[in-house]
């Protein structure tokens, strides 16, 4: 009896909070039929926006993955002074407002910023261009691979690696043949999380991109741009595409989720 009540409460809360938003996206997008929705997401601006989003993710995600694995190795296997600070900086993006992230980049690369003045003298544009958007996306999605790999590395311990070393393997061989196979699912899961965060980033890129339609608008910025121009169908159609991407991410996440007992 109590079990049933608890279940009802939980599922009711979830239906309220989750299902409503999801279904309404689809409803509003296709309110006037499939045609208008399709043409809305196939305009040049829309296509450019999605392409830009994917391009940014294609750079930020691999960079963060390599960083993530190296950082995890460092944290678990090679203690060093300042490790606490490193840990804090890596975890910080989880707790920090994206607007603050964007603003800090804005300050660093703005005309009067530490890097900004030097870079503009050499004709390199960071702000209001791809580079800053990549940096912003990388910033907010930095923690995920690290946090997934660290506990796995801790758990497997060094025994296998030491055995490989005694059998003559070089450091690289140990990594490639022993360490990496052990962490690859954790890395995969971390990559999925990183990708999800990169595709969905809004606040930070909002600040650094300048929001020039057709040039520096990502898919998320495109959505809000359409909304602000009262193009409801356009906004929701683009949202549907993003929602579908999100569902694919969800499914992948749940397929790759680390089994219980790892942590």
């Amino acid at each position: 009896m109590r079990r049933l009540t608890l279940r009802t409460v939980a599922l009711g809360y979830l239906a309220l909070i989750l299902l409503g938003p999801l279904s309404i996206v689809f409803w509003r997008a296709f309110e006037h039929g499939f045609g208008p929705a399709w043409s809305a997401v196939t305009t040049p601006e829309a296509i450019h926006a999605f392409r830009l989003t994917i391009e940014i993710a294609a750079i930020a995600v691999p960079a963060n993955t390599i960083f993530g694995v190296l950082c995890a190795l460092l944290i678990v296997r090679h203690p060093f002074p300042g490790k606490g600070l490193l840990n804090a900086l890596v975890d910080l993006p989880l707790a920090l407002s994206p607007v603050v992230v964007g603003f800090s980049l804005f300050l660093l690369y703005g005309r009067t910023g530490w890097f900004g003045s030097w870079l503009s003298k050499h004709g390199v544009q960071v702000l209001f261009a791809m580079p800053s958007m990549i940096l912003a996306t990388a910033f907010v999605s930095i923690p995920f691979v690290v946090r997934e790999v660290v506990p796995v590395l801790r758990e497997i311990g060094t025994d296998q690696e030491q055995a490989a070393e005694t059998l003559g393997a070089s450091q690289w061989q140990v990594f490639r043949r022993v360490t990496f196979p052990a962490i690859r699912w954790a890395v995969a899961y971390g990559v999925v999380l990183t990708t999800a965060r990169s595709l969905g980033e809004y606040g930070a890129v909002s600040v650094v991109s300048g929001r020039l339609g057709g040039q520096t608008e990502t898919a998320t910025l495109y959505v809000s741009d359409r909304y602000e121009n009262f193009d409801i169908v356009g906004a929701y159609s683009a949202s549907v595409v993003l929602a579908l991407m999100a569902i694919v991410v969800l499914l992948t996440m749940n397929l790759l989720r680390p089994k219980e007992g790892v942590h």
Partner: protein
Amino acid sequence: MSPFSGLTLGVVVSYLSLVVALPLAALVWQSTKSGSTGFWQSLTSPEAVSALELTLLASLAVALVNAVAGTVIAWVLVRDEFPGKGVVNALIDLPFALPTIVAGLTMLALYGPRSPVGIDVAYTRSAIVLALLFVTLPFVVRTVQPVLQELDHELEEAAESLGASNWQTFSRIVFPNLLPGILSGVALAFAKAVGEFGSIVIITGNIPFKTEVSSVYIFGQIESGNTSGAAAASVVLLAISFGVLLLIGALRFWATRHHA
């Protein structure tokens, strides 16, 4: 340290500095540029204070609701069986996977004008709470689930054999073991809520002193070129984020203090 790890350290530190540390350093430096009086003035401007108050109150309220709701949901997902449980479990991550701006649009569609359920809270504070409840949903659930799963069934059986009722077993044995997990989930949810931008910016109309949260306030300051105002408020949010991280670290330490 071997050459390999020396190289790794170099790469890691450089990357982290470029992407995270230097921008934040620039932020902190900027906030000192206008001197301590300037900083204090920007910090205590009525609009900034009002935004911060609203942000903190809403985030706290949402964190507390999640503490209860998240625990109940985690309990049902771990201890109960019903058809479609896998789907429900997967859906918990939706707020993480869905871009915040899309979440914001859907909030507007559901709870704004032309709402299919007849609730119109657009441009009100309730809208903020609703949006935050959506984006913070996964946090407590996902921190409590693994703890519940690993909780030794024998502990509950032992308590039962010693005469404890269901409630007593829960409150004296299960709950104390869940508490650190609940608290870290709450801390993460709080931090996310404080910094949330994309899901709020549309539905609330960002009316200063009424529905403007700190992140939106900062955005506005940037757009109007008031760098010092934006910097001061940003530093506050940065400090809150750091504080939350320290708290989570302390919780982790406290949780394992009795484990060999």
